[in-house]
């Protein structure tokens, strides 16, 4: 089945120790997103890739970076995690076309990050 996969499902890191979260997809979608979700709140978009074009949200801290080496994979790097970065991180994909707001997003299961 076509899907969005996130690894690991649970990640524990120490305060200030860099961490990388991974997302892969078999849907061949050209748009990939990273969201941060805290305590059953609405997901907050951090950034997204439209093909190779990186689109950062204005309020995303510099501490968060992303890489997309190819269509299938996308990584979220947190350079110096703070206690406030503990959250669920969700990856999503969608089929992106010009004026493509009608296309739904497909979400992975998420990675729950704990910062000690």
């Amino acid at each position, binding site marked *: 089945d076509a899907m969005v996969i996130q690894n690991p499902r649970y990640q524990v890191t120490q305060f200030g120790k860099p961490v990388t979260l991974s997302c892969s997809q078999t849907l061949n979608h050209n748009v990939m997103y990273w969201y941060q979700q805290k305590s059953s709140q*609405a997901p907050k978009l951090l950034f997204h890739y439209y093909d190779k074009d990186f689109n950062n949200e204005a309020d995303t801290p510099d501490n968060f970076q992303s890489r997309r080496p190819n269509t299938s994979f996308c990584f979220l790097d947190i350079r110096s995690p703070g206690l406030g970065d503990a959250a669920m991180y969700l990856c999503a994909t969608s089929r992106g076309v010009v004026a*493509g707001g*009608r296309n739904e*997003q*497909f*979400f*992975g299961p998420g990675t729950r990050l704990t910062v000690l």
Partner: protein
Amino acid sequence: AQSVAQPEDQVNVAEGNPLTVKCTYSVSGNPYLFWYVQYPNRGLQFLLKYITGDNLVKGSYGFEAEFNKSQTSFHLKKPSALVSDSALYFCAVSTLRAAGNKLTFGGGTRVLVKP
């Protein structure tokens, strides 16, 4: 700017009774509206969407939603709720010009279906 409101933080309903989760939106231009469900420690799962056409949209697991342009609402409904419908529900809006299909989410409504 576009926005979505889900006025109820939680909805409690008895199993077998009708379930309604409310959503109102604000956009300039024609909206694309979505409902997602999230089970504990899982990602969001797409339920249904309104793009154009018939105001009543049918989706997964027996859910449906009614688009009402005059009231700018898109309420989610299920005629007979199941205990397994207990989850967190998010309404979201997008627009024709949304770069990269960017969604704006409501704050979420927790649904608790009691046996």
